[in-house]
């Protein structure tokens, strides 16, 4: 069980809603994944319509909504979008995404910290998407975020855990849950993130653009579960040196 803010989750697989070829398939795949926290871009949602097709398909007891601010370029826009999301979707949960660079969608650490500080004060449960920067994670923790979401590699790149050395430091130091978000391209990447102690992973592209999103969602579900079990069972760590049968120090006992 994983607790973030005021919610407890059985599944440690969080999912996104973009890039699917239909909302029906999205819903089927997300149900299959077991995911209980689903993020969707505010820009894709028509908050003025009672018939918004994405929201309609996500209206299911399994799913908790995590609106995200994808598309905003600075703290001011993020706060504006967050307040709109809270009012329209009646949730104070927020995935804070500020990536002014539309090419690689890399997060702006300065604007993210400014926005996080203000949004926490305004009563939001803030989950910021950030680079795998251990110091920034501690600063965000001090600001009162509910979890940190460092990237494994650029969004949608499917390149896996390129930042693993820094993720390990973040996980070691963090007092809030660590959700590895972005770049996870294969179930083995998700399993690896869980094995090193991440509290959860967030996956979208790898499921949505596969040839069989429902089967891929199931594969991720199993990988996340396996990775977590392995972490809790304490992995046998590889030993970087040989265990010599004729130790060099055996002579000491003979003195």
């Amino acid at each position, binding site marked *: 069980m994983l607790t973030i803010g005021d919610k407890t989750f059985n599944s440690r697989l969080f999912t996104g809603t*973009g*890039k*699917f*070829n*239909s*909302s029906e398939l999205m819903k089927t795949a997300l149900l299959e994944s077991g995911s209980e926290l689903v993020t969707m*871009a*505010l*820009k*894709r*949602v*028509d*908050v003025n319509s009672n018939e918004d097709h994405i929201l309609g398909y996500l209206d299911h007891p399994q799913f908790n909504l995590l609106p995200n601010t994808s*598309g*905003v*370029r600075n703290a*001011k*826009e993020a706060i*504006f*979008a967050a307040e*709109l999301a809270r009012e329209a979707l009646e949730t104070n949960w927020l995935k804070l995404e500020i990536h*002014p*660079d*539309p*090419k*690689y969608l890399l997060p702006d650490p300065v604007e993210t910290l400014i926005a996080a500080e203000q949004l926490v004060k305004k009563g939001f449960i803030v989950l910021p998407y950030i680079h795998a920067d251990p110091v920034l994670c501690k600063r965000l923790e001090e600001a009162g975020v509910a979890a940190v979401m460092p990237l494994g590699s650029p969004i*949608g*790149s*499917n390149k896996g855990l390129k930042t693993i050395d820094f993720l390990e430091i973040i996980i070691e130091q963090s007092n809030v849950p660590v959700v590895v978000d972005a770049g996870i391209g294969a179930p083995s990447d998700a399993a690896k993130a869980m094995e090193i102690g991440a509290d959860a992973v967030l996956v979208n*592209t790898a499921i*949505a*653009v596969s040839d069989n999103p429902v089967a891929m969602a199931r594969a991720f579900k199993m990988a996340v579960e396996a990775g977590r079990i392995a972490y809790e069972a304490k992995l046998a760590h590889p030993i970087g040196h040989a265990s010599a049968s004729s130790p060099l120090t055996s002579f000491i006992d003979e003195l």
Partner: protein
Amino acid sequence: MSFSEIFRSYNWDDVKSKIYSKTSQDVENAISRPQRNLEDFMALISPAAAPYLEQMAQLSHRLTQKRFGKTIQMYIPMYLSNECQNICTYCGFSLDNKIPRRTLTEKEILSEIEHIKAMGYDHILLVTGEANKTVGPEYFKKAFKLINPSFSHISLEVQPLDQHEYEELIPLGLNTVLVYQETYHQEDYKKHHPKGKKSNFDYRLETPDRLGRAGIHKIGLGVLFGLEDWRTDSFFTALHLQYLERKYWKTKYSISFPRLRPHAGGLTPKVEMTDRELVQLICAYRIFNEEVELSLSTRESNKFRDNVIKLGITSISAGSKTNPGGYANAPESLEQFEIDDQRSPAQIAEMLTRQGYEPVWKDWDRAYGGV
């Protein structure tokens, strides 16, 4: 360094001969590299790449799905005016074409909006000729106030404006500006634009810079295929794109692919661009730049559009009218050019769904700009 300076450091004929001298090996290298540069782009648009079209299409398909998923953005043009002070050899709105001129009133704009909203659209592209005195920034401001409440995303394809004029429109809801250089061949540009403000090649060339400085969200680039050698013109478009991406790194970019279409006082294309060549170019752009949006209008045929959406295109229009008032007020008035794909938005959406794509009607929110 401005783009004008970079542009002046290139010679059209040298670039052209470089493109036409690319070899199979150059193409294979470009396809197999993890990241491509402008030299690779030259190879991908060269005649040497023709035998590799299927390989390029497969790669373009994969790269597009990875970045954009199984979705296609839907947008529609709304022509506000066909008044124009320019003489352009290829355009139905050209000043020397004796056609009835029309600029929509506020009431007419509202009824056009009503018709467009009924089709399901949330992204709109506003188009005019170039008549700065009557259809200039003040007219646009009034139009934006009427249009902004009904659409999440507003694009503009009008005469180039000054930086401060863009800065005044952005808070009113302006998100994207499309400005096509038509051709980067300076001498030919002069021939095709003999009269009017559009004859100023440099002012047009520097428009994306003014937009970048104004902090616009998205800039659309392109050339009109048929005026000059499409390969060389496309190289300069890619050069422009690369410069802009590096300098105005917070701005998004899109590329369009207009081919000359029949119109009043029609111009025969100097250079024909075949369907195969257009597919090659679409794939080349995607392989060169995995993030740029690629847009295709109703100028192209049903069959072509149905097939090319899988090869790199990320946004299409449907049900378009290219005359002011064409949706509700004056369906019979003269079009800027003839459209080919006459299907309704619902029919296009159905076609996309059938092919395993989701038509996306909304992918922006006014709240993001604090509008």
